[in-house]
């Protein structure tokens, strides 16, 4: 910890990075010592991933210096960074599903060769088995990666990063899809790495993990460096305050809601390979939270309700009547709206104007004889922009020009424009700045108070707990429990989500309740 600056393993100084008009990282300093575990925390969109992608050469900084062992470096690709001993564990999406597990570990690396020059596939598989074995994973390394579960794919990604004799390992949300046991194994590996002098950058949303594993913590907010401190100097409340800019309790107000009758019910909903036997009830005037780890099947359930990927069996009941929903178009006609998790790929048509994005789901109402009534369209967009305070660009400008929070408001406007009675929100505040986050939370609260049936999926437990009247928890494709009122605490939800629930689990004070 107390090394002189020149012997720092990795040091970033004054890093700036912007994409188009959006500043992702604005003059951030960061450093990492030998054998140190340095946690990087902040809300979604705070710039953590971007900063680390600069460190590993995936992005080139607009300004600022990257130094390794006190020597300035200019990585032009992740390969350069790897050669300098800096590896990143990417998200699960950044892999090759058609290639075998062993090949995924070998892509971009020197492969073992036979004497006559060909690739030694046996040695390659053997190496892969050994690397995965060190992480406690035993599987057929010649099978395509795409056949693996999200958790196993994550372990493969970790194995890949560790294989290159890295001196610095950047872990970007490594436990997002892991069970508790797998997480424990990862922590043991991290401890082992740091005892060998390897520096670890640990990005995570889970603060208890951060407090357990990190030597120091750096907080980013909206692309700015907020504070770097040793772990012992901080506690959870202080850390949250630094991350969101104000104490947590103030975040979400909750109006009086009067819970009404059942709007939508799922009975034994099943889609092979995604989820099974889902029973859920959505009532008018109520927010149902859907919690669980990434890959637990929450998004799949919501998308089945919305007709994106319909279920194989089981029933969806609207007002007590079984209906079949085979496409989003049908779901919308029945008054169901869905705000997808992947905003840029599923929520928005980025080259379209803000106006055309807002009106896209409502064109049937806005046109006569097929011709679009442009004035009605403009009025709809203006109303929405005022109601949700969309700021940052004219309504005729492409949606791509907006910041994350305003883009999300456009997606919300589009969903609300049809005045649906049932709203499904999937990670509604991901990648959104603090101000917009609060606005969106208030909007969801108001929608419930107005008598809509609302489902909220969120990986940020505080958010789910603050918004929801009830929380259903999913694990491995099934609903494993439902908690209401004061039973719904972070500890109990996590215990259910990771499968470590004990029957006499004592309810801790509900942190997120207003």
């Amino acid at each position, binding site marked *: 910890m107390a090394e002189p600056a020149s012997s720092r393993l990795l040091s970033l100084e004054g890093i700036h990075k912007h994409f188009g008009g959006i500043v992702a990282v604005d003059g951030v300093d960061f450093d990492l010592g030998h054998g140190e575990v340095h946690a990087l925390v902040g809300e979604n969109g705070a710039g953590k991933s971007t900063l680390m992608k600069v460190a590993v050469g995936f992005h080139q900084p607009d300004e600022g210096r990257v130094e390794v062992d006190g020597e300035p470096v200019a990585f032009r690709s992740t390969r350069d960074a790897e050669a300098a001993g800096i590896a990143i564990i990417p998200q699960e999406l950044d892999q090759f599903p058609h290639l075998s597990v062993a090949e995924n570990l070998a892509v971009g690396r020197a492969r073992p060769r036979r004497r006559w020059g060909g690739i030694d596939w046996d040695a390659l598989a053997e190496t892969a088995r050994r690397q995965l074995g060190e992480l406690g994973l035993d599987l057929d390394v010649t099978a395509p990666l795409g056949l693996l579960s999200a958790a196993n794919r994550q372990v493969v990604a970790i194995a890949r990063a560790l294989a290159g004799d890295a001196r610095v390992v950047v872990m970007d949300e490594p436990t997002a899809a892991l069970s508790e046991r797998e997480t424990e194994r990862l922590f043991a590996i991290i401890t082992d790495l740091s005892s060998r002098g390897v520096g670890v950058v640990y990005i995570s949303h889970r603060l208890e993990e951060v407090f357990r594993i990190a030597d120091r913590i750096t907080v980013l907010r909206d692309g700015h460096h907020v504070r770097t401190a040793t772990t012992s100097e901080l506690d959870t409340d202080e850390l949250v305050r630094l991350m969101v800019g104000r104490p947590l309790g103030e975040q979400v107000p909750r109006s009086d809601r009067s819970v009404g009758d059942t709007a939508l019910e799922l009975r034994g909903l099943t889609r092979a390979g995604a989820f099974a036997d889902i029973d859920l009830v959505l009532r008018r005037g109520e927010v149902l939270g859907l919690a669980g780890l990434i890959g637990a099947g929450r998004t799949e359930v919501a998308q089945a309700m919305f007709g994106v990927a319909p279920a194989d069996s089981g029933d969806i009941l609207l007002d007590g009547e079984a209906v079949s929903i085979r*496409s989003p178009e049908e779901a919308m006609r029945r008054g169901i709206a869905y705000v997808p998790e992947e905003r840029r790929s599923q929520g928005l048509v980025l*080259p379209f104007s803000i106006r055309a994005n807002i009106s896209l789901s409502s064109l049937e109402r806005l*046109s006569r004889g097929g011709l679009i009534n442009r004035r009605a369209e403009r009025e709809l967009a203006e109303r929405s922009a005022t109601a949700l305070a969309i700021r940052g660009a004219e309504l005729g400008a492409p949606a791509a020009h907006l910041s994350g929070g305003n883009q999300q408001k456009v997606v919300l406007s589009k969903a609300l424009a049809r005045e649906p009675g049932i709203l499904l929100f999937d990670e509604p505040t991901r990648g959104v700045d603090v101000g917009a986050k609060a606005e969106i939370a208030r909007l969801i609260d108001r929608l419930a108070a107005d008598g809509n049936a609302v489902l909220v999926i969120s990986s940020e437990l505080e958010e789910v707990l603050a918004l929801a009247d009830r929380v259903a928890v999913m694990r491995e494709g099934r609903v494993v429990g439902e908690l209401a009122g004061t039973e719904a605490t972070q500890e109990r939800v996590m215990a259910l989500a990771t499968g470590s629930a004990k029957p006499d689990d004592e309810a801790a004070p509900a942190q997120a309740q207003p």
Partner: protein
Amino acid sequence: MTRERLLGREAVLLGVLVVVMLGMSLLSDQFLTLGNLLRTSRFFVEIGLIALGMTLVIITAGIDLSVGSALALVSVTIGFSYAAGAPLALAILLGLLVGLAGGCFNGVMVTRLDLHPLVVTLGTFALFRGLAFGVSDADAVSTYPEWFAYFGQFYLGPVPGQLFVFIAAITAVWLLLARTRFGRYVYAIGANEEAARFSGVPVRRVKVTIYTITGALVALAAVIYTSRVSSARADFGQGLELDVIAAVVLGGASIRGGVGTIPGTVLGVLTIAVLRNGLQLAGVATTWQLFLLGVLLIAAVFVNEFFRRRDA
């Protein structure tokens, strides 16, 4: 995309067209005469009609390689059902139906089996041509009642009749694309198909409709073509798909989807037509026509892509 920028692109293309035309008139005195220009128009109406449909297809990031074969199939259907004794009006109707069905088949294969349009239309490229050869037995039908000539050989004063058909079709497809809900859906699918689906756009229905419209326009072009050359043969329209795609892409449509306009496509069609006709009048061999066309195509798209990247 913003309106201004698109207009900008079309203005550039218009400039290119004017320069090409001026160049041609320097090479040949006959080129810039009204008579020649109107005569030329007889030869590009067929490509132009199909290009209108292809524009829709390409905006959705699709492609249709089967149009040349479909043209032959429709032509043969008309000719041989007439030769077999059907009244010509019925034969024409049958031809139109075949074109429609062929396009619809492409659309259904693409959407229901989730296959890449390139793969599907490569298959129908072979199938339609094969059917045309089978039906016609590699023969031709070249005698028709006099009134059939109206579709492809009629002049109103100096203006060829099919030019009116083309203008009507341009207007209809332009309105469809620029002013209607359907047109908005077409752009949305091309720019981001997944987001379009999540927004409740009936993606499959729109796509099937687009390929069907293309089939209908091919059928219309086939009627005009058959009438113009007064013959129905299975080897018609070979390589036509490439000319059509070239015209659409030259007109500013992006093969990646989401971008393209009808005015742009019309300008693209005109540029290709002028280039081919003008060079012919100037006595320049096919050699350089093909060479110039190829180079112009790559250059035009390079410029488009360059500006698109710079804007992004």
